[in-house]
């Protein structure tokens, strides 16, 4: 077995591994042949090697009707693992208005031209064909908790025994901007797609030694794409392509860098020194979408107005449908104190809202104490799927689930750092808490890479391709 920190395993090594696997009586699983881009064409060869496999579903004898809302990282993963662990007797329907999911992870690399948005698209063919998931192209408009059914945008209804909501986030009107401004003038580009392309185009059209302003909302926000990562990549792009006098002004509503403090302190103060200006603890941000004038109050109370060429407001988000009148709010599921998130029991991801029996919320919309990230959402989905399978079988959820977070962050077009954490269940406080040093949780910290380099950048691609495969293939 090759080590995790080696370069991505070559085909020859994989074949050797497969041979070794046969020798010890395992199922040969890496017998791919031919060109990667021809194999598993469903997703255009986007997944890592060894994943043109189908894992046979467990034989559970269980039956039940499960509706999953949202086809992002959490929703795709929960649908797949419900089939794998729940068996062929479950009816699993994935409700998603889009024909494909565009990954937020890696989407900052669209901004410097090293990736395209289409390269980040993942369809539902694998889930539908390989795992027998019914994919319904529609949006949810209402949940009828008493009748245990959901109403869809096409007017149809779906009844459920268990409902898993993985709707992701909506972006709030903020800083004097509206959704129309985000779409056409000042893109947040925080959901990968058309706004990412727009921001990329705006960056490419910037004048020499221009000014780029971005804002970072108070935590919690969804990451990746990471805001500090974005600042670093934009700085790298501008100083390479638009002159050393280019400026990246980062207006952070938080009092300090929220993740990978050492890596990004280095990136801001050393790697991209003179380009990035970092202002923490800013308030009263106001943005004029037409003139691109940005006004803010800094930590000491000074009001400043900056004339920018491109403005990228990463605006506050909330669980999709949680705004007043939204479908999630109408069902009373946005029960965090600020009404922006769905509070869940982290053993099963069941909603803690009143009369929400059989409703689970996973991913970015959930308030579960862990980061709002695709990698974490994938694990929340597995914990949720495992809990549902146990509950359908008359058992209780696993009393001690473990989750993990891992994230590679590009700091330049060719180097990256990483951040990782394992989360153990703290039964006293009924929370997931960071663990290190043999699983101990007292004083434990998230770990970040001790340095950034090209090797991490290569590993980032393996991580990404494998994670997407675990979720969508």
């Amino acid at each position: 077995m090759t080590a995790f920190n080696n370069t991505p395993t070559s085909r020859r090594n994989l074949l050797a591994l497969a041979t070794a696997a046969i020798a010890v009586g395992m199922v040969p699983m890496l017998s791919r042949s031919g060109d990667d881009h021809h194999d598993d064409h469903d997703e255009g060869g986007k997944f890592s090697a060894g994943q043109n496999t189908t894992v046979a579903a467990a034989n559970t004898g269980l039956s039940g009707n499960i509706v999953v809302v949202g086809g992002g990282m959490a929703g795709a993963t929960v649908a797949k693992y419900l089939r794998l662990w729940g068996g062929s007797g479950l009816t699993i329907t994935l409700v998603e208005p889009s024909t494909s999911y565009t990954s937020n992870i890696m989407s900052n690399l669209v901004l410097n031209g090293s990736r395209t948005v289409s390269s980040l698209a993942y369809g539902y063919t694998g889930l539908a064909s390989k795992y027998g998931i019914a994919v319904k192209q529609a949006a949810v408009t209402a949940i009828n908790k008493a009748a245990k059914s959901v109403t869809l945008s096409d007017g149809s209804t779906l009844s459920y025994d268990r409902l898993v909501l993985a709707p992701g986030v909506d972006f709030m009107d903020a800083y004097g901007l509206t959704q129309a401004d985000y779409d056409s003038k000042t893109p947040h580009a925080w959901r990968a797609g058309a706004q990412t392309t727009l921001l990329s185009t705006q960056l490419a059209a910037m004048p020499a030694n221009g000014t780029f302003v971005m804002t970072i909302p108070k935590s919690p926000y969804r990451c990746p794409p990471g805001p500090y990562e974005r600042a670093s990549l934009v700085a790298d792009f501008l100083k390479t392509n638009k002159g050393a006098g280019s400026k990246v002004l980062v207006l952070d509503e938080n009092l300090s860098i929220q993740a990978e403090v050492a890596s990004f302190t280095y990136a801001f103060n050393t790697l991209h020194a003179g380009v990035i200006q970092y202002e923490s603890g800013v308030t009263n941000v106001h943005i004029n979408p037409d003139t691109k004038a940005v006004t803010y109050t800094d930590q000491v109370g000074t009001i400043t107005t900056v004339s920018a060429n491109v403005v990228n407001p990463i605006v506050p988000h909330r669980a999709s449908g949680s705004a007043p009148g939204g479908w999630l709010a109408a069902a009373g599921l946005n029960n965090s104190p600020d009404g922006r998130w769905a509070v869940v029991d982290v053993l099963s991801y069941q909603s803690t809202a009143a009369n929400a029996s059989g409703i689970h919320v996973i991913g970015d919309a959930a308030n579960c104490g862990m980061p709002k990230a695709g990698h974490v959402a994938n694990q929340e989905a597995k914990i949720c799927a495992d809990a549902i399978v146990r509950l359908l079988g008359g058992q209780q959820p696993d009393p001690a689930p473990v989750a993990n977070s891992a994230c590679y962050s590009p700091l330049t077009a060719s180097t990256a750092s990483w951040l990782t954490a394992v989360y153990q269940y703290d039964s006293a406080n009924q929370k997931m808490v960071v663990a290190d040093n043999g699983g101990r949780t007292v004083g434990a910290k998230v770990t970040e890479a001790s340095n950034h380099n090209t090797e991490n950048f290569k590993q980032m691609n393996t991580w990404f391709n494998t994670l997407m495969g675990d979720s969508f293939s």
Partner: protein
Amino acid sequence: MTIKKPKTSPRQLHHLRHLRPLALALAIATLAACGGGGGSSSAGPSGPGNSSISSLSGVAVDGYLQGATVFLDLNKNGLQDTGEPSALTSATGQYTLDYSQVSSAIEGLQIVVTGGVDTDTGNTFTGRLTARASKATQGQVVTPLTSLVDAIVAQGLAADVTAAQTLVATALGLTVADLGKDPVAALASTPAIYTQAVALQRAVQLLASLNANPGESSHKAQERMMKAIAKVVKSQESKVDVSQLVAALQVANTTGASQLATAVQNSVTTALESGGHDSAKAALKGLDQVRVRMENDFDENDSDHSDDLAQAAGKIDDEHGLTTSQPLTNLVTDDSDAGEIDAVQNLYQPGTVVAQPANTNGRLLASNCFQCHGTGGMGGFDAIRGDASEVRDYLTKPAGSDIMAAHAQGYTNAQLDAIIAYLQQ
């Protein structure tokens, strides 16, 4: 025929608890009798005569179904219940149902097959196959064609299984003997068994999806559609094919299913001639994507989401950027030729099928590895199914030096042991 030595697994003991008292007494007597049985199949105290008729062996085939659940439906409710003999199929679809603990007669009961993976496509098998149990028939094949025979019997449309087989054989231009053959094993001699079977299965599944009643399970809807086709077979006096049977159905939305059956028959026939079974597998994998697309996309009130086969194939081709070559669109049109099969075979190769570890202890913990090592630990940075013990090497490295070190150190030793043990299976 292999005679299976009766064994008592914990799972079987669990089933025993749910048997009626009389059956339980009988079962215990049987177990006691066989409990000390040696390795010889003929040496059991219950005698060779008894043990030779205490199991039903056979093979489940659309393509060979791997890891599918086979059960004997004792209470005739169509569902797998505790205490009903059941088994999982092997990588080549083989099963053995041990009914030594069943006190009632098994003759004529339904053998039902669901789940698993269709090894011809690498897709989860979402269909439902049935056949009638008969002690006299070992090596019972369970295929879409036996399911059709069974649907005739179930509705009393024929006097017995043989009469029902005659009806199906006549309608599809096969012999009664053909219906008892393993379609894959018979590919070289009688490929029509396979082509008719896989066409029928796909038509039934598409029909079921397009015509399911609110709240009706997919398997129930399939059963209903198979019964509807059985009625058409009953009134059939000369040879037709699956698409003609479907077109004659008295149910809604038959257009796409009929087109699909034609496309499957034609392209699989062509594929078998040009490249054998491997080519046929690729054609079926591509066609299954088209079928699933139709099932998911269908909206009877929207002509952009009709059950037109070429429309669905065209959408998939377009999404793959294959607007010029249009491999699936070409495949589903009636004039499939070898070149078109080759184009599809380059794109749609069946994947490998992998069984999950049987013991689920440590499964949820181990799933934390899958984001980086692939589902089931099968790939990514490296494969860890089989031996994940190397993770312990990372416990002594500085956490910031290696993401695996940082990750490994978040677990307790007991948790790492559970992960390793799970992945070793």
